[in-house]
């Protein structure tokens, strides 16, 4: 594990481990329930990409804004969306973050700063600029982090958004979670650039590529981008390389992913590696780590039990929240 700018403070290391563990275990539980047929929904597992939002979870404030995409569970938990609210939404319950109207692909939770989750590739980037613009006009030092995949770097909205963010010098951090595949297409087959971060040059923007599975490096890169944005030094394109363990969508045969590549990635599970690194470096004790894991499990048990006991929306709620008033 690299230590380019020194090891983060222990509190941050602990927060990162907590977030990572919460994401990993939440994903495992959700997939288990899907596979056992307890729930039947569309799901895009973020397993393998835990490190990226974990680093941000140790650095962002509640009032900072996050925008993400359909593979977003890790980003939701990284920004602090409550497990209970999230599970209730995943199960389509009235008590969910979005009253059962959004689902996993459309989580919004303003109280934690998770503002938009879009199911349209690349469309979150232009919207993130609006949050950045709001902060800039109000003179606050809030930053906006927008997450997207490598596939999004080939859609027009990406380019329009980066250009405008640079022209207006907005406090926005464009986080490309490059997991190597745009749906079923390998990165190099669909992307002309060697690295997504190289594209920043075309917008006179700082572009950084970092190993998004290395918590210390990821923390350092995220901190740099956040500090720049808070100081009014403008946007950053931060490409974090990673890997998704379970393909594009649950049920994906993953025929297009070489088996040995996937096996190697899973053998180098970043959550497992991080735990070992924390222990070996004496940053956190086995007791502390085990306690965090037990707390995550208890929290998860509680959230799942809570969500299962929540009520589905009644059919007349179909008509609520289309407009501000009922006239239209």
């Amino acid at each position, binding site marked *: 594990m690299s230590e380019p700018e020194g090891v983060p403070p222990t509190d941050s290391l602990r927060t990162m481990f907590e977030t990572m563990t919460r994401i990993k275990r939440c994903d495992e539980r959700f997939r288990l329930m899907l596979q056992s047929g307890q729930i039947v929904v569309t799901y895009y597992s973020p397993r393998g990409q835990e490190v990226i939002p974990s680093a941000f979870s140790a650095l962002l404030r509640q009032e900072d804004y996050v925008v993400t995409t359909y593979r977003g569970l890790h980003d939701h938990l990284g920004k602090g969306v409550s497990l209970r609210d999230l599970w209730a939404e995943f199960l389509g319950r009235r008590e969910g973050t979005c009253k059962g109207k*959004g689902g996993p692909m459309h989580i919004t939770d303003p109280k934690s700063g998770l503002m938009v989750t879009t199911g349209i590739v690349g469309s979150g980037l232009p919207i993130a600029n609006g949050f950045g613009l709001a902060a800039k006009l109000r003179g606050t030092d809030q930053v906006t982090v927008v997450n997207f995949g490598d596939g999004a770097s080939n859609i027009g909205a990406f380019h329009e958004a980066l250009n405008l963010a640079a022209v207006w010098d907005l406090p926005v951090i464009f986080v490309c979670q490059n997991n190597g595949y745009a749906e079923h297409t390998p990165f190099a087959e669909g992307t002309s650039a060697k690295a997504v971060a190289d594209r920043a040059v075309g917008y006179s923007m700082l572009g950084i590529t970092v190993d998004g599975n290395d918590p210390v490096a990821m923390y350092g890169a995220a901190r740099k981008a956040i500090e720049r944005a808070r100081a009014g030094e403008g946007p950053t394109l931060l490409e974090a390389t990673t890997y998704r363990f379970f393909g594009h969508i649950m049920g994906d045969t993953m025929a297009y992913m070489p088996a040995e590549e996937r096996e190697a990635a899973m053998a180098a599970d970043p959550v497992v590696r991080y735990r070992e690194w924390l222990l070996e470096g004496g940053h956190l004790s086995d007791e502390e780590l085990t306690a965090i894991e037990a707390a995550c499990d208890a929290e998860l048990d509680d959230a799942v039990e809570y969500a299962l006991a929540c009520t589905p929306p009644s059919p007349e709620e179909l008509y609520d929240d289309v407009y501000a008033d009922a006239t*239209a």
Partner: protein
Amino acid sequence: MTGEPETVTLPMVAAINRALDSALTRDPAVLLLGEDIGDPSGGVFKATMGLSTKHGIERVRPTPISEQAILGAAIGAAIAGFRPVAEIMIMDFIAVCMDQLSNHAAKLRYMSGGQTCVPLTVRCSAGAGMQFGAQHSEMLEAWLCHVPGLKVVVPSCPADAMGLLTTCIFDDDPCVFVEQTLSYFVPGPVPLVEGFAIPLGQAAVRREGSDVTVITYGRQVVDAMKAAASLQEEGISVEVIDLRTLVPLDLDTILTSVGKTRRAVVVHEAVVRGGFGGEISSQIHEHLFDRLASPVLRVGAPNTPVPYARELEKAYVPGAADIVSAVRQAVK
């Protein structure tokens, strides 16, 4: 002494400018974004002339030619508490940013279970008659009316443009405000009332009549009034309804009028096939089938792109003569 407010005569584009100026003055959350909207250009049709000078370039923000980025930034700022007015220069360009409008502005309130709202106004110029050709002349309001979550407004005169635009800006939902280019420079009386606003969803009966109801909106209200005057000479009494807003739709005013006249002609500049006239016609048939003395007729553009040559464009845009023919057919 009457109760009518004092008025001033202004072209529609100046009335729009006044509404924007007044909104920017009243509420620091109001924000303008769009291509070339800053001074000295003041917008390609001068709708924003003087506003960046008066209110500053931070709040009246010229943008690159990036429609997705314009609407995206407006949506994010709207969710964060601003009231952005985004100018999409020509309505045809909405095609470039329909994802932001349809998938995001329209749906984010619903998808978030009402936790966030998008108080955004999108202004666009539209319509044929200037020989702009097929990609700068279309009326695409039917696309927008088909998307739940959007409100759609088409003013017919300067006073309505001012009053309805003000309402859109302070409405908590995304509104698309369609300004027909040919109407921009037609003068009309505008009330000298600070914050003058007209509620959405209230049609105006522009002329009372007893034989046929002509239901229309935007610039075609003027044609309908001309047609009604000429038909009066033939002894046909025409009632003219100006819808003003398509979503929300004032169905009560439509049904009350057609319930009385028992005949209706729906008129719009957009092509007939799949146009909003079909929706209005269908609503009338569903509610008043037993009352109708003849089928509801539609007047609109033919199912072609907008042509360039003056003669072809004239043949494309429906006018007063087309309305007269349709009304005659309805009363036959």
